[in-house]
């Protein structure tokens, strides 16, 4: 066995030495892999975000709300331009589309009249085009979802069930219930353990000391992170695989 091991080592050593002495062989082995890694690294930065010019001709609150949603959208890389500059950018292929929120947007919205948002797409191929076609209605969906209670006309909501029940993590907001520390822990859990379905349980409201916009923003972000929120939930007992609330409900881990 020792002799065979020596033979194996000698052959390995010989072949590696021959390979190293041939710069073309080394280049042919390493260069394509290095170039491919570099290309994928540089290319990955732009995947999924199409460059779009945004022209906002209305400074009313509804137009500004939609503008803010479009700017925060994961689907676009938005540059705000004037109408002329946007048209030039579309012609010179600097952007894939131009979205225009017209001057009459707020007036039409308040009067319950048609308020079209124009999207001009360079429909070179259906991959880009369909992404853009889906993304603007998605932003409009978010716009309606953000409307205050009673102002959102959409009465159909989605009740999702996942086929594979994931391991469940329950974050119990420490100290001052549902406070900033609890929220921070929550976000850490979600980011560090993507496979977990995380639930935030708090005795009162989420961020009770920051009502209004800050709380709404945090709630929206938590919902986007697929965190289940249980307010007014006092915990009676924590076991190795579940949390039991004072009302007797069991939240399985």
């Amino acid at each position, binding site marked *: 066995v020792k002799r065979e091991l020596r033979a194996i080592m000698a052959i390995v050593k010989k072949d590696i030495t021959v390979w190293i002495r041939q710069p073309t062989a080394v280049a042919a082995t390493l260069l394509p892999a290095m170039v491919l890694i570099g290309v994928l690294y540089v290319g990955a930065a*732009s995947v999924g975000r199409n460059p779009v010019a945004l022209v906002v001709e209305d400074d009313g609150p509804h137009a500004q709300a939609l503008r803010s949603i479009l700017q925060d959208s994961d689907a676009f890389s938005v540059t705000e331009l004037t109408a002329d500059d946007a048209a030039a950018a579309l012609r010179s292929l600097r952007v894939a589309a131009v979205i225009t929120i017209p001057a009459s947007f707020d007036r039409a919205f308040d009067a319950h009249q048609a308020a079209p948002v124009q999207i001009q797409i360079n429909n070179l191929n259906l*991959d880009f085009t369909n992404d853009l076609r889906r993304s603007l209605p998605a932003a409009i969906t978010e716009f309606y979802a953000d409307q205050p209670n009673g102002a959102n006309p959409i009465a*159909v909501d989605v009740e999702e069930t996942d086929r594979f029940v994931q391991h469940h993590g329950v974050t119990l907001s420490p100290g001052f219930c549902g406070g900033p520390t609890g929220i921070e822990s929550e976000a850490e859990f979600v980011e560090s353990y993507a496979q977990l379905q995380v639930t935030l349980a708090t005795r009162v409201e989420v961020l009770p000391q920051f009502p209004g916009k800050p709380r709404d923003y945090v709630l929206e972000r938590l919902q986007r992170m697929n965190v289940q929120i249980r307010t007014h939930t006092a915990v009676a007992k924590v076991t190795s695989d579940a949390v039991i609330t004072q009302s007797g409900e069991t939240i399985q881990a």
Partner: protein
Amino acid sequence: VRHDLRVIRAVALKDVRSSLTERLFTVISILLPLNFLLLFLMFVLTGGEAPTAVVLQDSGPYAQGLVQAMQDSQSFIIQQTDAETAQRLLEQGRIVAIVTVPANFDAALQGGQSVSLPVTVNNLNVDFTNDIRRAVPLAITSFYAQTAPDQVVVHANEIDVQPHDTGYIEYLAVSILVVSLLIGGLLQAGSIAAREYETGTIKELLLAPANRWAIETGKVLAAMALNVLSAGLVLGVVVLVLGVWPEHWLQVIVFTLLVMLTFVAIGLLIGTVVRRRTAVIPLSIGLGLPVFFISGAFGPVQWGTPLLAAIAQMQPVYFAIAVFQYAFHGFQTTPFSLTANALVLVGFTVVIVGASAAALRLRATP
């Protein structure tokens, strides 16, 4: 001149004959570009639409309207079925999600009440799951915009720049045709050049009373002749099988010759520099792939990162894809005009042929 022409003809004939004696290699190098075409198309065929079962428990107009909105959303491939079949399809992995339109859907909406839409997702990976999570609310909003336009007044009004949509396969097939020409050109020309060094015949060739440019031209012509077979095969599949009919046939032919010349010249340069076919083959395939990714094969590179766009413009494949997309679809995919793209390609070819001729020097063995 007559002597040079004789040299060109003799070198070209000799290289074609030498290549044809290695039948297996020739067949593989002709079929490899076609293999690339089929491989990339397989990735594309899956598309961006999620196969979804709709269980319609209400046959009212609102329920029908919602299904129509889902069909129009370009996000689903819809299959209407009963709950049991849908569950079975989900468990077999044949669909991504089940959307159930409940029996009280129309009644609830007519009564101004809210209604929940049960959605079961095969959450195997976040990509599919998030597609469904985004697409269902989008379909609901579109449904409202259709059925209650006085309530959901905000909608997208689309204007297209191109006169008609072009499918992803039709677009990508043209880019793959270019990369096929690239890989075929690099393989054929690189092997022709490297073979002279491996067999030691480069010494005799360079000592012969012939101009080096004539030798180089003969090799370019031989590689192009062999590459025409693989280019013709790929072009035939693109046009006849995939049905991508060029808008400008003459330009397709002219640009095919121009692009082939460029890539063959690059192949000769690589073969002359590395002098081994064992290095030419992995370099041709290995460099062809990343160059394909950065050259705007999937869409204009300007829509990606500025760094990627800058790198793309430093090599000829970017311009080759641009002229082919114009010849096939009439598209402008670079900020430059068609003439500018073609002139840049000619410039690349001249520089590369010059560099290749300079690299061709006497050295009998590697």
